[in-house]
C-alpha cells in the first residue's frame, strides 16, 4: 500500500513542478516577446514605432522549449551515466549534481540563441531605422536565462522523476520506458504549447485595448504603440514581466499544472481499479480494465469541467454585464 501512496505523492510533486514550470515559461516568453507579443514587436518598427524591446525570435515556443529541455536532458543523462557508478546505492546524489549542471548548460545555450535572434532581427530592420540598443541586449539576457532556467529545471526534474518513478516508489517495473532526453523533449513541447496558447494577457484586452469595449479590435497600424510608453518612461520588457507575473503567468501555470494533475490522477486511479497496482501483473486482460477505468475517469473530469465552465461564465456575465460588441 505504501507504494501506491508513494506513487500518488510523486504525482503531486510532478503536478507542482509543472505549475512552477509553466508560470515561469509564460513570463520568460513575455520578457523575450517570443509568444503573442512577437508580432507587435516586429511590426512596431515597420509601422514607424522604433522601440526598446527585446526580439527573441528563436522559433515558436514549443520548439525552443523543447530545445532547452532536450539539451538539459542530454547533459543530465551524460552526467548520470558517469556519476551514478560513483555513488552505488544512493543515485539521488548523482542527480542532485547532474540536474543543475545540465540545466545551466541549457541556460547558456538559451542565451546564445537569444542573442543571435535579437541581433539578427534588428539588423534585418535597417531601413526602418531601428538601432541595436546594447543595454537592452545585455539587460534582458539574464532575466531571460533565469526564467528559462526555472522552467527547464522543473521540466528536467519531472523527466528525471518519471524515468525513475518505479525505483523511487519501490517497484522498478514501473519506470518509464522512455529515456530522459526523450521525456524532456515531449515535456518541452508540451510546456511550450501551453505557454504559447494560454496567458499572454499583456497584449490582449488588458493593456492595449483597455479603453475599448471588450472584444473590439484596433487597426494593426496602432498595434506598434504598445511598445512605446510605460507607466513611467519608455516601456521595456521588464515592465511586462512585472505586469504579467500578477495574473498571466500563474494562470498559465495553473492550466498546465491542472492538466498534469488530472491526467496522471486518472491514469493512476484507472491502474488501481484495473488491479495494476501495487504489482504489475503479466500483461493480460486486466490491462483493458485499467485503460477503461482511466478513460471513464477522464470523461467524467471533462464533463465536470464543461458544466463548471458554463455555470461560471453565466455567473460572470450576469454579475459584470453583457460583453459589449457581441
Amino acid at each position, binding site marked *: 500500500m505504501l507504494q501506491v501512496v508513494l506513487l500518488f505523492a510523486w504525482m503531486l510533486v510532478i503536478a507542482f513542478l509543472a505549475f512552477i514550470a509553466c508560470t515561469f515559461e509564460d513570463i520568460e516568453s513575455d520578457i523575450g516577446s517570443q*509568444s*503573442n507579443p*512577437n*508580432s507587435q514587436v*516586429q*511590426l512596431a518598427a*515597420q509601422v514607424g514605432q*522604433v*522601440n*526598446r524591446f527585446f526580439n527573441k*525570435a*528563436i*522559433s*515558436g515556443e514549443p*520548439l525552443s522549449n*523543447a*530545445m532547452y529541455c*532536450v*539539451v538539459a*536532458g*542530454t*547533459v543530465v*543523462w*551524460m552526467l548520470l*551515466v*558517469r556519476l551514478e557508478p560513483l555513488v552505488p546505492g544512493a543515485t539521488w546524489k548523482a542527480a542532485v549534481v547532474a540536474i543543475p549542471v545540465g540545466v545551466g548548460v541549457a541556460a547558456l*545555450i538559451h542565451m*546564445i*540563441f537569444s*542573442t*543571435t*535572434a535579437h*541581433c*539578427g*532581427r*534588428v*539588423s*534585418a*530592420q*535597417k*531601413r*526602418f*531605422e*531601428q*538601432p*541595436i*540598443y*546594447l*543595454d537592452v541586449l545585455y539587460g534582458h539576457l539574464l532575466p531571460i536565462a533565469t526564467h528559462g532556467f526555472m522552467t527547464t529545471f522543473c521540466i528536467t526534474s519531472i523527466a528525471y522523476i518519471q524515468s525513475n518513478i518505479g525505483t523511487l516508489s519501490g517497484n522498478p517495473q514501473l519506470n518509464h520506458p*522512455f*529515456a*530522459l*532526453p*526523450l*521525456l*524532456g*523533449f515531449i515535456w518541452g513541447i508540451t510546456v511550450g504549447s501551453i505557454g504559447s496558447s494560454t496567458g499572454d494577457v499583456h497584449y490582449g484586452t488588458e493593456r492595449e485595448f483597455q479603453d475599448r469595449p471588450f472584444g473590439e479590435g484596433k487597426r494593426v497600424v496602432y498595434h506598434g504603440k504598445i511598445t*512605446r510608453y510605460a507607466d513611467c518612461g*519608455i516601456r521595456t520588457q521588464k515592465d511586462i514581466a512585472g505586469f504579467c507575473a500578477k495574473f498571466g503567468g500563474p494562470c498559465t501555470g495553473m492550466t498546465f499544472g491542472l492538466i498534469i494533475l488530472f491526467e496522471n490522477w486518472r491514469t493512476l486511479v484507472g491502474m488501481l481499479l484495473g488491479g495494476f497496482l501495487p504489482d504489475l501483473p503479466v500483461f493480460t486482460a486486466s490491462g483493458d480494465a485499467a485503460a477503461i477505468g482511466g478513460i471513464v475517469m477522464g470523461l467524467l473530469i471533462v464533463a465536470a469541467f464543461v458544466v463548471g465552465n458554463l455555470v461560471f461564465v453565466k455567473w460572470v456575465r450576469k454579475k459584470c454585464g453583457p460583453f459589449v460588441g457581441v
Partner: protein
Amino acid sequence: MTVTPAVEEEEGEAEAPKKGLSFKFPYDETEMALIAGIPAAIITIFTGLPAVIKGVGLLLALLWGMDSVRKTSKYGLGTGVPSIGVLGTGYGVIGALMGLAVVEYGAMPALGIYPAVLVGALFMAVLGLVSGYFSNNEKYIAMKIPRLERAMMELGMAGTLAMLLQFSIVTGTLAFQSVVDMVMETGVIAFMFIFTAMAMFHPYNACLGPDERRERTRMVSIEISGLLCIILGFAMLVLGTSPWGAWDGLSLIVFGAIVWFVFFRKFIKACMDECWETVGTGLIKTLG
C-alpha cells in the same frame, strides 16, 4: 505568433541573374548545394573517418539544409519557417531509418564503408519532389511557392545526410543494431532532432526581415553546427564508441568550440556593423 514582413525579392538577383555555374564567392544556391551535398554524401558513406571530418560534413549538410529552408520561406512564410525546418528534419529521420534498413547491402564493415545508406537520401529526394509537386500543383493544394519542388527535395536530402552523419559520429558505425542501442534507446536522437531542426530553421527565422542578407544568415547555421559538435563530442566520450579512442571526441569538441566562437563573433559583429546604428543606450526617436 510571428508575423512575416513582406520580404522583397533580393536586389542582387534582379540586377544580375547568373547563368550556369560560376563558383565565385559567394556561391549561389545551386553551387552551394553541389559544394555541400557531394562531400557530405561521401563522408556519410565512410564511417571509419575521424569525427572531425564527419563534423565538417555535418556542417556542410546543415548549411545546405538552411539554404533550402531559406529558399522555401523567402516568399512570405512567417510562422512557417520553423515548420519547414522541422519538416526537413522529419524527412531526415525517415530517410535515415530508410537508409539504415538497407544498410547491409554492399557494406564493408571491416573498413566502415556503408554505401547503401544513400538509398535513404535518394528515397527522401523522390518523396520531397513528390510532396513539393502536390503542394504546388494547382490541381491539389496550389500553394504556388516558386521553386518549392526543388527546395523540398533538397530539404529531404540534407536532413537525411545530417541525421546519418550524426548517427555515424555518435556510434562510430552505421550498423542498424548499434544505432538503435546507442542513439534511440539512450534518447540522444531527441537532441539530434531538435538541433538539426534548429540549425536549419533558426538562422532564417532569426534574421527574417526586409534587410536580411544571405551571408549573414549562413553564419548562424555554422555557429549552431559548432554547438551541436560540442555536445555530440561529449556524447561520444560518454558512450566511448569511437575506434580512435578519447581523442576523437576531444578533437570534435575543440573543433566545435572554435567553429562556434569564430562564427558567433563574426555574426554579432556583422549585425552590429550592418544595422541602422549600434548605440550603448538611448531614448526612442520621438523623445529625441
